């Protein structure tokens, strides 16, 4: 192996070691102290059981995972599996809706001329300037009984008179899509912007109809943006609990709520840790599947 040459300097091994520690050290230290160690602790705690007053105690047990899988004191009751599924469904639903909304938008923005393009991108990001909670409360008002949106929905026959869109699934998804849309639009836009239109023309030239042109001329090219956007929306949307809580009528428990419940008022850290470990594992599995499916290159855009 040829010796490594550092341009314009002659430094000893000793110096090099210090340089590595100096540049990467603080970051690594931070991650170890505040990410890796706590994560290990969470994993460890999930195998303990709850003591009195919220402490935890041995011996090692799989009880928490059994309970999470639905085998409680009163026999099988799939309360937690349902919560997990509900959260995954919310994440998936949000991702799909965001994709449907973002795809035409990304093409629209990419075809605008320069100044309008920048304006449109700013408009996409503007909702972030307002706090999530404030936006969510705003939706409560906008969709509540007597609001003009509710009246319009009644007039259109979408809901019966006397009902309102909030609280309910419509309100939850509406707010979720609005919140997560930029995460889908921006990576998709980045892909669409770089689109090689000659492939679209080649497909047309070779006799492809509109659907086939999209499938072969466009889709393979925007897959990186598609994959990145899906991850960026799906992951946080799965863990989201404020919006379902505030707009869904506080009836539905999501992974996030369940977690917060155990660590907070429930004082059951071991069980809470088990929930955290399982949700983390699910997310990792989803990511691995995505990477396998779309090739590693696609995630570089992240």
């Amino acid at each position, binding site marked *: 192996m040829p010796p490594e040459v550092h341009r314009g300097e002659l430094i000893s091994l000793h110096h090099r070691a210090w340089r590595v520690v100096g540049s990467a050290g603080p970051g690594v230290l931070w991650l170890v102290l505040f990410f890796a160690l706590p994560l290990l602790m969470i994993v460890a705690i999930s195998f303990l059981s709850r003591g009195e007053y919220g402490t935890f105690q041995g011996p090692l047990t799989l009880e928490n995972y059994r309970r999470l899988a639905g085998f409680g004191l009163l026999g099988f009751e799939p309360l937690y599996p349902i919560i997990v599924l509900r959260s995954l469904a919310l994440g998936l639903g949000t991702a799909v809706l965001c994709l449907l909304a973002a795809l035409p938008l990304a093409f629209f923005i990419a075809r605008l001329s320069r100044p309008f393009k920048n304006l449109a991108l700013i408009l996409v990001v503007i909702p972030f300037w307002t706090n999530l909670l404030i936006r969510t409360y705003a939706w409560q008002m906008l969709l509540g009984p007597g609001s003009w949106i509710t009246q319009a929905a009644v007039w259109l026959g979408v809901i019966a008179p006397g009902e309102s869109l909030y609280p309910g699934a419509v309100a939850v998804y509406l707010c979720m899509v609005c919140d997560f849309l930029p995460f889908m639009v921006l990576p998709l836009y980045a892909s669409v912007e770089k689109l090689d239109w000659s492939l679209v023309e080649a497909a047309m*030239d070779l006799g492809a109809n509109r659907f086939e042109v999209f499938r*072969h001329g466009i889709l393979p090219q925007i897959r990186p943006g598609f994959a990145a956007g899906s991850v960026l929306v799906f992951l946080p949307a799965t863990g989201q609990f404020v919006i379902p809580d505030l707009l869904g009528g506080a009836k539905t428990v999501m992974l996030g709520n369940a977690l917060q419940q155990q660590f907070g008022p429930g004082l059951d850290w071991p069980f809470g840790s088990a929930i955290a470990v399982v949700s983390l594992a699910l997310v990792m599995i989803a990511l691995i599947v995505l990477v396998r499916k779309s090739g590693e290159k696609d995630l570089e855009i992240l």
Partner: protein
Amino acid sequence: MPAVELTNVCRRFHEVVAVDQIHLAIRRGEFFSLLGPSGCGKTTLLRIIAGLDRPDAGTVSIDGKDATEIPAHRRPVNTVFQSYALFPHLNVRENVAFGLRMKKTPRTETEPRVHRVMELVRISELGPRRPAQLSGGQKQRVALARALVNEPQVLLLDEPLGALDLKLRKELQVELHALQRRLGITFIYVTHDQEEALAMSDRIGVMNNGKLEQCGPAENAYERPRTRFVAQFLGACNLIEGIVRRCAEGRMGAETSLGEIQAEMPSPAQTRKPGERCTFAIRPERVGLMKGSEKASEINAVAARITDLIYFGAETEYQLEVAGGLRLNARVMNAGATSSPLSVGETVVVRLPPNALIVLDD
């Protein structure tokens, strides 16, 4: 019936007129080249024939049928794109089979046709490769196979060899030419390389600023350019300005800075009146050089000084300055050891044969 006929085709992009009132008929089975500098509108014209762009005015008919309103995917033409535009997610075989797949051709027919065309362009062994794993020349062949497999009535080629190195380009020129002869498909070939156009085409259409400047057999475009632009775009050319003195019986005499000059005029349509301005063109290889400072008594001969010479091996290019200050280029074949070399600073007699002088329209 022409394979493709364009009638009064116009296309403008905002303020820029890309294609300006083009009338053109391309014969069945011919190798037709659209030649011009970049930005002259040749690619736009090709895209209009392919159906990838719409003319603002005029009609396009393919095989005698008006195709102006027919979308690209239903026209009996296929394109070889400059960038090749191979589908990166499909392998070579799938790329080649794409057109047949889109037309829902049965598998029993697709397989042998794909096999045959891949053999024809010599990419049989590349079937399972992805476009990213191919060299430029291989991509070019795949793009060609992908278009040819559809057996189009007209094959449109948009500078297909533009991205390749010189040696490969020469090789593929020969191959493309032979392929066209063998298949008998009408080729419309867009290029900015005049040598390429001359070497391959039956006929050439020279374009400039959206207009078709001249259209005709390849030799004609070179031997009898009609405009200043065509004369200078296709190979090097000396231009000599003058004023018409006499014009009769297929001969024209004009007063120029070289003195009185006579040119043959094969076409009676070019007849000029005395007193009009005119421009002569003469190719450097048609300019004759003779040793000696005495001005010969014959017509179209003038003394000149050699200001520079460039030795190319097979031939030598001389830069000459005539008494009046006019500069001329002459190219002389280095035929044998006997020809005594001319050197810089020497005075020679330059002869401009009347049948080599072309009278330009502008």
